[in-house]
C-alpha cells in the first residue's frame, strides 16, 4: 500500500488513472484504484444460502459484515482455488462495501489515454468481455481493465 501512496503523489496528470493489476487465472485484470478501499488476505467465508451463485458468502472485516463475490464465477470461469496468494479486494461502490476474490495482486500501474485502447465488441463476446471497459498496455503486457461498478451492480 505504501507504494500506492508514493505513486499517487508523484503523478496526478488529468488523464492518468491508476490501476491495481490482479491475476485471475492466466489473465491480468486492472481495477481502478479509486474504488479500492483495502486488500485483505483470504479468510473464512461464511456461506449464505439461496443467494446469487457468484457470491461466496460474507466475511467479518473489523466488525463489519461484507459480502464476497467471486469474479471468476461472475465472469463464467472456473471456481476459485484458494492459495496463499489469494486476496480479497475490498471495493467501495455507491456507499456499499463488497469484497472480490482475485488469485493474486501484482502491482500498481498508471495508464493514460495513450496506452489504453477501447475494445470493439464482437458478436462472439462471452460473459467476461462484457465487464471489460478497455485494454491497457504496460511494460509490453496487456491488462484487461475491469468495469468493476458494472460487475458488482449488475445482477
Amino acid at each position, binding site marked *: 500500500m505504501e507504494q500506492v501512496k508514493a505513486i499517487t503523489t508523484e503523478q496526478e496528470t488529468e488523464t492518468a488513472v491508476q490501476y491495481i493489476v490482479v491475476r485471475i487465472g492466466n489473465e491480468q485484470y486492472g481495477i481502478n484504484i479509486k474504488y479500492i478501499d483495502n486488500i485483505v488476505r483470504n479468510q473464512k467465508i461464511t456461506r449464505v*444460502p439461496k443467494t446469487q451463485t457468484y457470491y461466496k458468502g460474507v466475511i467479518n472485516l473489523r466488525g463489519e*459484515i461484507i*459480502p464476497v463475490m467471486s469474479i471468476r464465477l461472475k465472469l463464467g470461469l472456473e471456481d476459485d482455488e484458494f492459495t496463499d496468494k489469494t486476496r480479497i479486494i475490498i471495493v467501495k461502490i*455507491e456507499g*456499499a462495501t463488497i469484497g472480490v476474490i482475485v488469485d493474486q495482486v501484482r502491482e500498481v500501474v498508471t495508464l493514460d489515454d495513450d496506452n489504453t485502447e477501447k475494445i470493439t465488441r464482437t458478436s462472439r463476446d462471452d460473459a467476461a468481455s462484457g465487464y471489460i471497459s478497455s485494454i491497457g498496455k504496460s511494460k509490453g503486457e496487456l491488462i484487461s481493465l475491469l468495469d468493476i461498478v458494472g460487475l*458488482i451492480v449488475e445482477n
Partner: protein
Amino acid sequence: MDVSQYLEIFLDESNEHLQTLSDQLIILEKEPDNSDTINEIFRAAHSLKGMAGTMGYKRMQNLTHDMENVFSEVRNGNMEVNSNLVDVLFQCLDALETYVDNIRETQDEGTDDNEPIIKALNAFIASEGKGNAAPAAKKEEAPAATASAAPADDKDMPLADFEKNAVNEALKKNLHVYKIKVSVDENCILKAARAFLVFKNLEGHGDIIKSEPSVQDIEDEKFDFDFSIIVVTEEKYDNIIALIKNVSEIKDAAGQEITQPFPEEQTEEAKEEKKETSAVSQTAKPAAAKPAAKKPASTGKTSGSVSHTVRVDIEKLDVLMNLVSELIIAKNGLVSASHVEGDEAAALNQSFTEQIEYLERVTTNLHESVMKVRMMPIESVFSRFPRMIRDLNKKLGKKMELYMSGEDTELDRTVIDEIGDPIMHLLRNSADHGLESAEIRKERGKSEVGSIFLDAFQEGNNVVIEVRDDGNGIDTEKVKAKAVEKGTITQEQADVMTDKEAIDLLFRPSFSTAEKVTDVSGRGVGLDVVKSKIEALGGDVEVKTKYGEGSTFSIRLPLTLAIIQALMVKLGDEKYAISLGSIETIEDIPVSDIKYVHAKEVIHLRGNVIPLIRLRDLLDVPGEPEESENITVVVVRKGDKQAGLVVDSLIGQMEIVIKSLGKYIRINKMISGATILGDGSVALIIDANTLV
C-alpha cells in the same frame, strides 16, 4: 443576542402544547363542562402564545391570542362548546402546526395570516353574547390602565451626569421621558431573552438611555426578576407600556414620566422627587400586583409537572448503542477464549470464568438500560388518532368511536418514528372500508356507532399493535373478483384460492377494492406500503376477518432492533442464530415419532400437530446429516401457528448484535441478518417468522 438558540426548545414545546390542545379539545367536545380540561386548554394556549411572542412570531401569536380569547370566554361560562366551535378550533390547531412546521424548516413562520380562522373565532365571540365579549376586551386593557397610573419603581436609579443631560435635552425637545420598571414572571426560564425582546420592541419607538442593571448584565441574566429602563420617546406612556407587555412572561411594567428637567449641578430636588415616587409607588403596587398574582397559579402547575427527563439527541444514543454492541462482541470473544481445553488450564479457568460471568452480567444490564433509554411509549404515536377519527367522522358521514388501550407500551425510538403512518393507514382503512354505513349497521342489528379498537401490548420479545373494527369484515369473494378483473390472478386461480390467500391479495401493490376513490383511502397505494414498511422494521402484518363481523389487522414488531438474545444452532459445520423471541420449546424427538400428513413430516406435541422443517435442506447445507435415533427440534411460534425446525445440534444461548449483509448480495427472506461471533466468524440469523 438572538433567539435562534432557543429555537429547538421552542419547537419541542410548541408541539407538546399543540398535542395537549388537541387531546383536551377532544375531551372538551364530549364533556363541555369539564373545568379541568378548559383550564388545561387555556394554559396550553397561553403558553403557546407567550412562546410565539417571545420568538417574534407575530402571526402565530395573533392566532393563538384570538384562540385564547375564545377559551377565556368558554372558561368564564359565556360561551357554549359545540361541534362547530371545536371544528374551528381544530382548524386553528392545524394552522398553528403549519406555522411550527414552517419555522422548523425555514426559521420563519410564513406569510399566511389565516384571516378566515381568526374571523371565524371572532365571530364566535361576537355572536355568543355581545355583552360578554366587551368585558373580556376590557379586562385585557385593565392592567395597562392601572399601570399608567402607577409611577416609577421603589428602587432608586442613580443617573450619571451625562444621562441627566440626555434627559434634560429630551425634555427641551418636548419628548417624553419615562422611567419604567419591568418585572419578569418568576417562572420565566429565558429571562434574558424576554428582556432582550423588551429592548427590541422599544427599538424604533424611542431611545433607551439607561437601564439598571446594565444591558450587558441583563443579557447575561444577571438580574433577579425586574429591571428598570429610562426611555426617551415621542409616544404616549400607554403605548410604550403596551409594547413592553406584548412580550410574554413579562409580569408587569409600570413607571412614570419624568417631566422635570434635572437641575444642573444639583441633587437636592432630584432626591425629593425620588421620595415622592416611592411614596406613590406604594399605593400603586397592590393594583399592579393583582394581575400578576394570577399568572404564577396557572404556570405553576405546568412547571411542577415537569418530569425528570433530559432531551437527548438520538445520534448520541446511537453512538452509545454502538459502543455497547462492540462491548458485547468483545465479551463474546472472551467467553469463547475461556473455553480452553486441558487440565492445567482448569485452575486458571476457574477465576477467569467468574470474571467473565461478571462481565457478562454487566454488559447485559448495560445493554438493557441503553435499550430502555431508546424506548418510548407508543402514546406519542397514538395521541394523534382520536383527532383523526373525529375528522373522519365528519368526512365520511359515518358514526364511529375509537377505543385505545396500551398506550404505555414501549417501543424503540426508531420504530416509533416509522410506525405512525402504517397505523394511520390501517385506521383509515377500518373507518372507510371496514365500518358499514349507519343504515346497514342497523339492519344487521349492530349499534349505529361503529367501533374501532387500537390496542398495543407486549407478547414475548414482540410488541403487537392491533387495529380492530366491528364492521363489515373482508369480503373475500369480492377481493377475488376484483383481482381477476385487474388481471392479478386468473379465474382458475381464484376458484382454488383459500380465504387466507385471498386476503393476502390485499397486500399486493396497487390493489384497492374501494368502489369509489375517496379522500380517505382507496387510491390503490395502501396495504402493500403498510406491509413493506412493517417488514422493513423487522415485523409482519396479519389479518383476521369474519365477513359481517369485522376484521383485525395485527402488526407484530420486535421489541429491540439491534441486539437480541438468540439460540445458536449447528447445521453441519455451519452455525446459525435463531431469535429467542420466537422460540417456544426445544424438543428431543425419536425419529420413529415423525408422522406424515400430505407427505409432509409432522410431529405430535402435547396435542398439537406441528409441521417439521429440515433446516439442512432448506438452507442447502453441504454434506449429509449423521444418522441418529433422535432429532433435535426447535419449536417456534408466530401468532397461533407453530413449526418445528430440525437442527443438528444446539450450541447455546447468546446475546448477538444484528448486522446487515450489505446491498448487492441477494438475501432470502428467511435470513434476517448476520452476527459476529466471539471467534470473529460470521453466523447468519434465521428469521423463524418467515418459516412458520
